[in-house]
């Protein structure tokens, strides 16, 4: 194109860099669709996009590259197809794959100029964060929730990484709260979804992450009781598929189990005792209301807003159990030996959602807890995050402006920006914070190694790689989630990686404990990412990439934190992905307009070397 486009005019000198840049976009969902459009229309030349998800109806209110005809198809492939129609001049490469797949090696990451994260989950973000740190590629992370959103630039050694501030693990509930002493609607919803539903139609409860099954002295008796309940429920399951099944389940969990709970007299001395439900009388009530008529049931289910009465919950409970049973029987009849079909809870699957809503509400009634509408239960059971096009558009627009900064190497003006309510300040932007020196993720040196895990032994790894190539001494510890080796523990030296439980994608940490006599400090921890590969000859590994392994800062060096040229992170510590509070945003905006404390560059540590 010889004509000077508006993009070229506006971008000036940066345009060439933008046009030649090779961009990796991880995630083609809400932010991803907006980003791809922006990249294609601002002159980017080559964009690779990775997403393992498929398109769902509930995406269409914002993911505008997809239409009804694309439901259940790959997001990455359809996004590429739609976007190329509008600009055939851009080289788009789509992968319908998990970014954690081994095909996406560190070397592959290194081939990009910038990585744009448009993901919806912590796990994948953490992974991409580590890969970008290992490959030393700048990354821009972004995310939105309803009307709020945020984005920030992450550059190894210069800025905070995605994990410099600890991320809260998802909430789980103690098993006794769920099974014996619920006090909030969410407890009953978790019971219905993670316990009852799985027991009846799915996998065993123990595999469910929502429940904390830790046994201790205090809950010993209760847990014994619960195991008894499980045994009984298994017996009820023998009636699976019959007319009686719904009744038996109902009586078992809403009457017999509650009667038994009542015998734990101590538990109810100071709490309101649960009141068991009587199948026959509620059924009579439901029949009297005309619910033998299935059309009336369907009409009840067509509106998810009202809060159902006792007998309405009863009707939905029995009806959904029968629907789910029929589905499971049909599935299992189609099973050809091998694995047995199960049903899994899906908030968008009405049969499963009806069951969980009704069962949760019935349990709430028993324990005197407020009941909820199906609409609300959908949100509480499915961790639904509100999402709209507008916030995604704002955040994606910001990501591209920051990508211009990164590509033109103008890091002093790179930012983190929060989009939030109230409207008195739509965007709050702040200078990037320096890396947290104690961060277990970016505070370490990183390497990746391709290994034949069936061949390479820990001993060979230590001798060849660590000692010979990387000049480590004997004073080291090597660990995964457990200790594999240290000076006083050499039992594992003859074991292969496979025997030590190391798999593709595992991380191995090397801790240097050697304090050299010249007074220098030990090296920072080195973390290896293991990628499996078959090797037919020795050595059974290739060191794919390694960054420098700097020495730890001296303890007194911490004083330099008060240096004027650095933004001190201590006062601005926050949970990752949380919107910065007003006071914080104001403070940042202030430092920014005053134009003094913009410097964020930390000196590169020494000791950099590369192994090919």
């Amino acid at each position, binding site marked *: 194109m010889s004509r000077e486009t508006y993009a070229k005019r*506006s971008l000036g000198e940066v345009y060439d860099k933008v046009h030649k840049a090779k961009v990796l976009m991880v995630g083609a969902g809400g932010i991803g669709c907006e980003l791809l459009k922006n990249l294609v229309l601002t002159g980017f030349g080559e964009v690779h996009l990775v997403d393992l998800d498929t398109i769902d109806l509930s995406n269409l209110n914002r993911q505008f590259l997809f239409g009804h005809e694309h439901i259940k198809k790959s997001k990455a492939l359809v996004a590429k197809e739609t976007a190329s129609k509008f600009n055939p001049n851009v080289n788009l490469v789509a992968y319908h794959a998990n970014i954690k797949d081994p095909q996406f090696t560190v070397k592959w990451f290194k081939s990009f100029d910038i990585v744009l994260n448009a993901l919806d989950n912590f796990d994948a973000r953490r992974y991409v964060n580590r890969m970008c740190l290992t490959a030393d590629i700048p990354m821009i992370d972004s995310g939105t929730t309803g009307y709020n959103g945020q984005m920030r630039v992450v550059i190894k050694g210069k800025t905070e990484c995605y994990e410099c501030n600890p991320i809260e693990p998802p909430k789980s509930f103690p098993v006794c709260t769920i099974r014996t002493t619920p006090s909030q609607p969410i407890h009953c919803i978790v019971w219905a979804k993670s316990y009852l539903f799985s027991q009846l139609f799915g996998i065993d409860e123990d595999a469910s992450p929502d429940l904390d099954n830790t046994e201790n002295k205090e809950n010993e008796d209760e847990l014994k009781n619960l195991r008894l309940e499980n045994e009984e429920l298994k017996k009820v399951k023998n009636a699976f598929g019959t007319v009686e099944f719904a009744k038996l389940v109902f009586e078992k969990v809403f009457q017999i189990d509650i009667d038994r709970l009542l015998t734990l007299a101590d538990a109810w001395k100071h709490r309101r005792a649960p009141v068991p439900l009587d199948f026959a009388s509620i059924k009579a009530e439901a029949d009297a209301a005309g619910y033998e008529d299935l059309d009336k049931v369907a009409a009840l289910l*067509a509106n998810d807003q009202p809060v159902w009465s006792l007998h309405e919950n009863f009707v939905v409970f029995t009806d959904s159990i029968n629907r789910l049973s029929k589905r499971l029987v049909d599935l299992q009849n189609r099973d050809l030996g091998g694995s047995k079909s199960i049903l899994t809870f899906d908030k968008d699957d009405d049969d499963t959602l009806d069951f969980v809503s009704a069962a949760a509400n019935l349990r709430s009634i028993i324990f005197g807890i*407020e009941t909820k509408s199906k609409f609300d239960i959908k949100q509480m059971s499915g961790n639904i995050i509100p999402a709209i096009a507008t916030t995604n558009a704002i955040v994606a627009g910001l990501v591209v402006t*920051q990508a211009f900064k990164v590509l033109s190497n103008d890091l002093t003006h790179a930012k983190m920006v929060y989009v939030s309510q109230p409207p008195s300040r739509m965007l709050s932007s702040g200078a990037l914070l320096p890396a947290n020196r104690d961060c277990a993720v970016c505070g370490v040196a990183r390497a990746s190694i391709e290994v034949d895990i069936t061949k390479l032994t820990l001993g060979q790894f230590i001798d060849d790689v660590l000692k010979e190539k990387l000049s480590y001494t004997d004073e080291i510890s090597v660990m995964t989630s457990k200790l594999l080796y240290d000076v006083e523990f050499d039992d594992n030296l003859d074991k292969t990686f496979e025997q030590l439980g190391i798999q593709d994608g595992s991380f191995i940490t090397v801790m240097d404990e050697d304090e050299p006599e010249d007074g220098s400090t030990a090296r920072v921890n080195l973390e290896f990412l293991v990628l499996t590969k078959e090797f037919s000859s020795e050595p059974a590994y290739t060191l794919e990439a390694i960054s420098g392994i700097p020495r730890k800062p001296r303890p007194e060096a911490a004083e330099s934190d008060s240096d004027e040229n650095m933004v001190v992170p201590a006062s601005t510590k926050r949970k990752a992905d949380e919107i910065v509070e007003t006071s914080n945003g104001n403070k940042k905006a202030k430092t920014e307009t005053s134009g003094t404390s913009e410097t964020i560059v930390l000196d590169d540590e020494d000791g950099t070397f590369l192994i090919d």
Partner: protein
Amino acid sequence: MQQIIDDVPRSVTPHIVSARDRKYDRQLRLWAANGQAALEEAHVLLLTASAAGAEILKNLVLPGTGSFTVADDKLATEDDVDVNFFLDESSIGQLRGAKVAEFLQELNADSVGRSENLTLSQLDKLDPSYWEQYSLVIAHQIRPSVLLPISKLLWEKKIPLVVSNSIGFYARLRIITPEHSVVESHPDSTVDLRLDCPWPELEEFAYEFKLEELAEMDHAHVPYLVLLLLYLKQWKETHNGESPSTYAEKNEFKALIRSGVQSNDDENFEEAINTVWRATQATTIPSDIQKILNDSRAQNLGVTSSKFWILARAVSDFTKSSASGGLLPLSGSVPDMKADTTSYVTLQSIYRTKARKDRDWVAGRVNELLLSLGRSAAAISGDEVDTFCKFSRNLVVLDYRSLEDEYMPSTANSKKILRELEEENSLMSVYVGFRAVEVFEEREGRYPGTLDYTEDDEVILEAIALEIITSIGGSVVNERTSSVLKEFVRYGGGELHNISSLLGGIGAQEIVKIITRQYVPLANTTIFDGIQSVSAVWEL
């Protein structure tokens, strides 16, 4: 088993929690069914099929805005296709508005789109009744001589107008509507505990607890609201009936609560201590709410009064009645807390019962008011009264300034503009830049920077900026503004897609807030600078 299961009666899925509700599920979580209904009734008009305009509409079509019209008068060029996602190579030479409407329509069949070939420079010549079919108008880069008369017309007809501009790295958005009231402002919390002035049922419930007689387990499950009420009672007995008010007293009060802790399990005491500050605040009517209740629109109702003002009047009367103790209707919500189920449920019911009583008073008053205005009692539903009472502490009324007031030197917010211009790096320079570019376009019939030789344009634009600044009492175009003006010339009036897209996000978001009357829209101008990635909001 196959036989048996087929005989089990069951309804047939999928039920009609409709495909529509499923598609919109993620946004219904934000504005619920009533917000969605408002959106589906709306008809939005876009003036100028620019990239930014198309991006605003895209974000309105996707969530299901009822209908949209794109009005434009140009044929699509290669430049348009470069920057506008809703045009492609085949659109070149065709009516730009028609093509944009066509591509936008593909996004959502629930939204009905059309286009009109209107001469944008002659919009002020249209019959005034033309505008009445629209519920909101978006005007992108319409020259002031045309925009001002339209904005006056729309103001009279109470049709909201959203003005947008996007040039290079700069964007601007302005909202104009005579009055915008919000009941569902979505505050972080509607909790209103009234521990400083408990009503008899609440006192009775709390004072029945005898802390010293409780077993350890129970002691740890007394709701913290009860703890605070008990300790406040104890405090008042030794302090002439006064609540702790000074900082020192509040600390002393905290210590008093802490002295009651019996075991490590007493997290409820921690909750109580953490709430001391809020609990000892006197419950009053916030001043901004009092202002709304006292507003003449509430006090002097007429046949054309809106529901909002009738409800405000009813609540105002409530606060003056003996039923209220001089306070707003209670919201009735109780926060989560460590408590045994019975106490918690009883507390909830005490708060809800009181809230219902307040609400019933207001509902009765609303009926009387409607009757006296000669309107049907059904004009305001019970749900509307509920919502109004629940959010009565968080009502918002925005009285926007007209565009005319902003543009006329005599009524312009001159002080604000001049003061901001003196701030280092202030985005007010960008605002002045937009105003100068508008005048330039009006005089020259083209945007600055569109000719090969741009230095003259820089001079002309700076002269225009000086005119604007002097007209409001300033005297110089400062260095910062001058460099912003040069940037404007460099952009040649062209849009940069990601900036237009971002403006599309901001614009549509504010429009959704206005149409749904939920959340608080911005008042009244925002400027975005994509070079620094910063924005500013001002009332101009």
